[in-house]
């Protein structure tokens, strides 16, 4: 240490031992205190009481609450989709594929989306709407530009698959083929 007068090596040896024992036992004291505090106050975790109990969550039996705006797997309500292509254009990784064409007179061109999606006119027929969830970067830009809010983020995050191709979701014929049982 700088700023001290030189002490003999003999004295330095014992001083080192003393410092080592003191600092390590200070650390051990903190660990013991935390151990006793955490195990003595086992409470149900709710709200945000910081420091009020153990922080480990016994997943998958107990699951943490997912907040309201959380960005997990996407879902598109096709009855509300007007095929405007905005989500495909803004996506930074180009994971959305949309095919559409103009409706013929037999296909009810005056149809409007349901009231929950803003009742916008549906002039185009949606032929294909696929999202490759393996590419999706969960930035949320597509949900911000959608004029009818038909594409949304769901709280679903436990959808891992063994095969990368199975992560290509087709929203015109959507099958929720999640292999994990819902606990």
């Amino acid at each position, binding site marked *: *240490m*700088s*700023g001290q007068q030189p002490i003999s090596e003999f004295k330095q040896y014992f001083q*080192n031992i003393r*410092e*080592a024992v003191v*600092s*390590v036992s*200070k*650390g051990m004291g*903190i*660990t013991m205190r*935390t151990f006793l505090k955490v195990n003595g106050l086992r409470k149900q975790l709710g709200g*945000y009481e*910081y*420091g009020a109990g153990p*922080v480990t969550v016994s997943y998958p039996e107990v699951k943490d609450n997912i*907040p*309201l*705006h*959380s*960005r997990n797997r996407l879902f598109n309500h096709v009855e509300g989709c007007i095929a405007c292509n905005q989500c495909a254009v*803004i*996506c*930074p990784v180009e994971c959305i594929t949309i095919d559409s064409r103009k409706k013929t007179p037999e296909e009810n061109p005056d149809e409007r989306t349901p009231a929950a999606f803003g009742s916008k006119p549906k002039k185009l027929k949606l032929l294909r709407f696929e999202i490759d969830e393996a590419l999706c*970067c*969960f*930035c*949320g*830009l597509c949900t911000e*530009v959608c004029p009818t809010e038909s594409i949304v*983020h769901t709280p679903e995050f436990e959808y891992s698959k063994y095969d990368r191709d199975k992560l290509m979701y087709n929203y015109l014929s959507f099958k929720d083929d999640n292999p994990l049982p819902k606990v």
Partner: protein
Amino acid sequence: METPQASGQEFRTQEILLNMGPQHPSTHGVLRVEVVTDGEIIKAAYPDLGYLHRCFEKHAENREYLQVLPFCDRLDYVAAMNQELGFCLALEKLLEVQIPERAQAVRVVVSELQRIASHLLAVGTYSIDIGGFTPMLYAFRDREHILSIFEELSGARLLYNYIRPGGVLRDLSRGLEDKIKEFCRYFKPQLQEFDELLSGNKIFVERTANVGMISPEMAIAYGLSGVNLRGSGVNWDLRKERPYSGYEKYDFKSVVGANDVGQVGDCWNRYHCRVREMFESIKIIEQALAQIQPGDTMAKVAKAVKPTGEVYMETECPRGNLGYYIVADGSKKPYRVKVKSPGFISISCFDELTSGMMLADIVAFIGSLDFVMGEVDR
């Protein structure tokens, strides 16, 4: 007994080329270091980069400004808010748009919370690199609280896409303000406890004090910034010298290395500057939340901006000064985006500073420089 020297045989040694490979728990990412050692003493260390190169600069030339923002998060994924803030400030300089007061205050709160989270990761992993397993989980437990706050605010735990050109995406609700104040109140004694646990520990001090000395002249010549520069005694903090986003209103100290344990410029000082900076960040958050007023959180900026000109803007990130150089030609996509990352510079001073160290000290040195390969390789 006859020793080898006495019997006339020479004890020959040879230098070994060791590969501290890209997969290594202590290199903070995928960094490969070719180490030439003579026994325990290092003769030379050559870092080899590029294992995490994801072509950020080439991607940025083919995407609109709003689409480049999620890519900016992923540069230094540990401190994502600060990366977004730098890009948005550079873009706002080109667009010459005025940011509302509340948006500036929210940006400051969020950046300082991110700074605490990033420093917690830095000191936590540093402790486990040295060999102390306990402090890492203490640091990560508190980091989890911050990530939960961010998940409620922006929607994601690590890569937020929250700070936008013109302001922020979503307002800070009343409940969230109270939560952050409660967190600051809870965190201060936890941080003091962490400091007591690790900083004075004799084993930790012996391993990090007087190791990896960087003199102030060397730090400036290499262009180091942030804690690496302040740990060497140079009082330079961009939040105080060239304030941005309303930092001039807050009262905080810029933390410089001192001579109490070890010497100025060694690994212990850089580590302790990070701990003390967390205390200063708590002060800033409390001040910002005390004086925040209701108002707009987004200025009037078009969705597809078309700026012209060129700008270079640096901000103070937890790892140093991150700079964005944007060349804009009036179209929706940038012509060139160059990122000056502080970790790049921290690694470049390896060759010179590691010769003469022992092999175990190189781990302490790497951890104290605190770089993340995501921003080094881009």
